């Protein structure tokens, strides 16, 4: 993958992940019930997407053609 197309992927994926905590998409998470792992659904939703974002960026890093750059 070229540096340029990696950059495009990175921007698209991170924007999509970020939009999960913004309205309108956050509407799906904007509920008090059910309580999951002791947390209200809205709280849980945000934490879930943060964890998914961590994993996604980790994977992106491994396919980054540019990661050895100093």
């Amino acid at each position: 993958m070229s540096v340029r197309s990696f950059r495009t992927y990175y921007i698209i994926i991170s924007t999509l992940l970020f939009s999960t905590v913004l309205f309108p998409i956050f509407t799906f998470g904007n509920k008090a019930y059910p309580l999951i792992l002791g947390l209200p659904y809205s709280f849980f939703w945000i934490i879930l997407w943060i964890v998914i974002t961590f994993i996604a960026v980790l994977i992106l890093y491994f396919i980054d053609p540019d990661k050895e750059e100093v």
Partner: protein
Amino acid sequence: MEHWQISMLIMVLYLVIALIVGVMAGRGTNKASLEEFTTAGRGLGLFLTWFLMGGAIFSAFSFLGAPGWAFTRGAPAFYILAYLAFSLLPWYIIGPKIGRIGRKFNLYSMVGFLQTRFRSKALGILVGFIAFFACIQYLATQLRGMAIIFNLMTEGRIAFWFGALVAYAIVVTYVATGGLRAAAWSDVFQGALMITVSWVIGIMIVKKMHGTTTEMFSKIAAADPDFLRIGVEGSTMSTTAFTSVILVSVIGFLMWPHMFARSYSSNAVTIKKTVIAYPLFALLIIPLLLAGFAAVGVVNVSAVGESDQILPYLITTFLSLPGWLYGLVGAAALAAAMSSADVITHSASMEFTDGVIKNMFPNLSDKVTLLIMRSAVVLIGALAYCIAVFGGQGVVALLLGAYGSIIQFTPGVLSALYWKRVTTQGVFTGIVAGFVVNLYFQLFATTTPFEIHPGLIGLIANTIVMIGVSYMTKPDTSSVVESYVNDQKKTKPIKGNNTTPEASIYTYQS
């Protein structure tokens, strides 16, 4: 000994240790070096960078503001978690590029970055001033936080004004003497303390007051499910307000001079690895939110005074925990405030000296520059101290106000990196327009359209003006445009040709 005495003893002990760590870290490095003071010789490793960036997550704002919001407002407090987790993602792309440009032109500030690209003294002075005032506001939030902690943890024995003064004296001492590396090493010590204490205390508060989080949230949800939602009838924040406040914070986060300057002090791999870890760092504030929720429906809002004080209130008054424990919490909260205060002071002094002083008095030697930077540290502290003690806003409000100004640098910085057609006039008028619009909605207007954050409205005005004016003015044909926008990775050094930077901030001036 009484509780407050033990607690004060622990806080004083903490301050002494923090001071020693900071001063020790500054030893052995070249004290007179401008490069070392500003970017730690451009060689901060992953470990120190993690703690420097992580230190930004734990601040007076997360220690006092986050529980306060959870307590009085409920679900809107999630915005803090959301913005912290996502705020660093753009850095993966722009950080390494800014770093390379920084090395090429020997830059260490936001002002230097913009001024080298746009070659305008007026722009440098403008950016220097805006950064200076935004930083002072930010610093004031930290000082206010420290003063609240000192005051409440000693059961009112240390006056508000005196607490802020003591803590600030220490920050000024080690930033002025040690520079960036001192700040970084104190952050390591402070970071460890903050994380441990916030988790222990958060879990302890929930356990003592409710047993489990399930029980706690069941009670809150049963009483009022809308408290845990956003933008519904009876909720404390509208959907647009929630979305725009997250947007402003995420877009503004990297434009803070102390964040921006991290691109210079770390290499690309370190930057990328920091971005990866950052969402997890953000999760570290969860127990602080839980502590705030624990008080919902149990503690009467009017009994606390201001919402910022809920965490100290729970510990000292409501739960009557032992003195050593509130000493530790006090020390951790001080650590949180100070680790943010030190880097912001450091950056504010740099931006001010670079933007305002150097443009007005261009022929200063490195030695004099360094002296001015160190004096600026003291001045900035004094101004922030006045706002903290005499101004009357809450911690969250102060910080959000500052974000509105800082976010106005975003269009200029991004187009400096990626858009050749942008012109100096475009960026200058854009920043002025954005800043004025933001200020108008913050100070004079009572409401904003759809409850959008004033900073975001300013940003929209800023972008439109910048693009419009850029197309109306002549394109910039200088070679510096090329070397910013088309900057390639791995500019392999040509033998014997790479010891001095290609150009400096002065090359393109006049």
